[in-house]
């Protein structure tokens, strides 16, 4: 069935966005506008690739568990370092968040392309891409009975563990944000850090933790893209503009990860819908690829006109926090 195939691809397309937007929501809830997310996802991807590449090259016989664990740890480490760098610059040194974020994006893409290129050179192949099919196969292991359940199995059960992890993380994040003390404190930090500080909440600690955890989650989106979506094939710049799409999704989801789950599938679908419309030329395809952004802009207009306070970004988003002189 074509529509089941479309839905399955839309979800696969949406999962990196879901990782990215959940990570960015956690970060933004602490008042940090991390525009470095595209770079961080890129780093998350290439770090995993480096880990997988080294393991594939050096292991005599691949252990399925290690084949997944090593790229995963590498990816987490890479994006965590990026998150730490961003936090250090914006929280400790109070550098401008927009400039820092954009710099990290540029840096992350450059970092990824450099190591991507280096690995290609190591393989000595003519094709400018790295093929990690073996690792990818371990990553893409899905439930064995998915194929027997028809369209339901194809749409909902054919995915890999990382895809379900993304949904679980989003749900857990939504619960933490709205139902727990930690979530309340985090939201207070992003809304009004002076008030949070006066209430005895460690503003700096919350900002650091939220940004680093958010970066790690976003980085997993990069890893999912390479290992699952691209079947273990890394090619430079292949990740495209998915990072920016994840940031757009944050606005679309009005800073709520549970809405982001559906938003990511919608964005994923809009992103690939051109493949399912017959007779489109190249320019038409590009027009269709614009859809997620157009939807975000329309949505922004819509929520700005409604002026609902709960649908607004955290009040202190993008601003550094200085404790008042005492």
């Amino acid at each position, binding site marked *: 069935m074509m529509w089941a195939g479309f839905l399955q691809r839309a979800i696969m397309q949406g999962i990196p966005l879901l990782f990215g937007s959940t990570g960015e929501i956690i970060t933004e809830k602490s008042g940090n506008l991390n525009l470095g997310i595209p770079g961080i996802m890129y780093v998350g991807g290439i770090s995993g690739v480096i880990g997988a590449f080294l393991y594939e090259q050096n292991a005599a016989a691949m252990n399925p568990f290690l084949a997944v664990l090593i790229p995963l740890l590498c990816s987490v480490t890479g994006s965590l370092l990026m998150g730490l760098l961003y936090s250090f610059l914006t929280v400790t040194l109070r550098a401008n968040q927009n400039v820092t974020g954009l710099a990290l994006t540029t840096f992350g893409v450059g970092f990824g392309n450099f190591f991507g290129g280096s690995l290609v050179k190591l393989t000595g192949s003519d094709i400018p891409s790295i093929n990690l099919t073996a690792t990818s196969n371990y990553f893409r292991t899905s439930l064995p009975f998915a194929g027997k359940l028809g369209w339901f199995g194809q749409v909902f059960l054919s995915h890999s563990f990382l895809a379900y992890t993304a949904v679980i993380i989003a749900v857990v994040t939504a619960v933490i944000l709205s*139902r*727990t*003390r930690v979530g*309340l*404190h985090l*939201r*207070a930090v992003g*809304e*009004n850090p*002076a*008030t*949070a500080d*006066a*209430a*005895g*909440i460690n503003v700096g600690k919350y900002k650091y933790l939220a940004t680093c955890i958010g970066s790690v989650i976003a980085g997993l989106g990069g890893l999912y893209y390479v290992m699952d979506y691209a079947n273990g094939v890394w090619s430079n710049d292949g990740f495209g503009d998915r990072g920016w799409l994840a940031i757009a999704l944050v606005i679309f989801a009005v800073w709520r990860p549970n809405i982001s789950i559906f938003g990511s599938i919608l964005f994923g679908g809009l992103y690939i819908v051109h493949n399912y419309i017959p007779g489109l030329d190249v320019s038409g395809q590009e027009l269709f690829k614009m859809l997620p952004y157009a939807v975000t802009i329309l949505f922004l207009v819509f929520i700005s006109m409604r002026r609902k*306070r*709960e649908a*607004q970004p955290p*009040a202190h988003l993008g601003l550094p926090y200085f404790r008042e002189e*005492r």
Partner: protein
Amino acid sequence: MSKAVSQEEQVPAIRLQHITKRFGSVVANDDVSLSVAHGQILSVLGENGSGKTTLMNMIAGIYFPDHGQIFVDGKEVLIRSPKDAFRYGIGMIHQHFKLVDVFSATENIVLGLDEAERFSLKRSAGRVREITAQYGFELDPDKKIYEMSVSEKQTVEIIKVLYRGADILILDEPTAVLTPQETQKLFAVLRRMRDSGKAIIIITHKLNEVLSLSDRVAVLCKGKYIGTVNTAETSESELTEMMVGKKVDLNIERSEPKDSVDRLTVEGISCKNREGTELLHDISFTARSGEILGIAGIAGSGQRELLEAIAGLQHVDGKILYLNPKTGQTDNLRDKTPMQIRELGVRLSFVPEDRLGMGLVGNMDIVDNIMLRSYKKGKSVFLERKKPRSLAEKIIKELEVVTPSANTPVRRLSGGNVQKVLVGREIAASPTVLMAAYPVRGLDINASFTIYNLLNQQKENGVAVIFVGEDLDVLLALCDRIMVISSGRISGTVDARTATKEEIGLLMTKNAAAPEPEGGAADGNA
């Protein structure tokens, strides 16, 4: 433990002994000792800058005293942070609320608490309801802060403190933002809290509140502790005398006004803020040429709005008539834009709390700041820089501005020098009306006198000067007439040559808002 002991021999809930606090060379509190018992309301009375808030901040853990001791229930304590204060059962309700707008009342109340039990907003909301019922507050625990009135926000702040189990409550000018009816409700709640054994300290400068609410009054004047009296045994005039202190002679020269004409006539202006609270009510006065009109009043009584109204920055109802000396015609400034008003020669030199906020741009140098007033002059596409530069150099020389050069960003200058640049620029435009709000705030004696001399010079040149001041001694020595405003109304106008400080002090604290039982919301101006 508070209720068991009888009122008379009970250990004070909190006692300060010989508390001194300095900020640099400024002594904010000098040897202050006071105490308050459980089941008692103490008012701390004093003018602006008398050190009331600083003193209370030391109890609340925001500042730490340089000297002296604090005792809670008879035991000496060290309060180094707001958390320490909470541990001793002390809670302070600040003038500026610290609340998260998009959170509900309950979420704000439990913010930062580390209770051992599982987090449940429902249970917390239940506890908030218990507190509101116990003391007679009116509050919906689930209402969002941004939907609340100022008085509801204040209620949230008070409950926040009670929720944490505070036994000693400090309220910093709680009635400054309330309507008379809301004030009555707050007082009823405070009395109930007192009756249940809480110790309450309320900072205020409103005498009528002191007399109606508190059991005892402690008076501060310019950082010094004057004394504590029982409310039942005192009177308004005694408290005023304690509050304003003795007259200090400043030796400011004052000439008699010459050829005065009514330059600016304000007739019945009123204005409201966004919440609908009246900021100015039916203000009428005249400013004459060749005269300094002083405006006295507690900070925030409407001085700022009044000056902004004349400068065209604040929309008001009523008339502002200006007699143009060139044409002899009378214009209504209310219909004019700020630019047109400035062209007529009405100048505002405003020093808000944030000195560089409204008058000058901190990152720009003196020449550029002068050009902010003249950038529209000249016909060339490019800016005319020569004249502003020579003016800048003139100001630097004549007013003795201490600066490396005319190209130094003004934010790097000291407060007094910034003020000289600002006043110098406004005077250079040869105004016919010069308004100066707190022009000497934060300046040292010498700089202050430079400013006084400048204002006097302008007066002799026939300018109508309006001077908003804080220090009554200065107002009495510099001005010709002093208009006193209280809660947005004129409570009296006195001759500065014959008036006394007590007289002005009484007018400043007079409750001018009395004849308004319905809240006055019936005006049909939508």
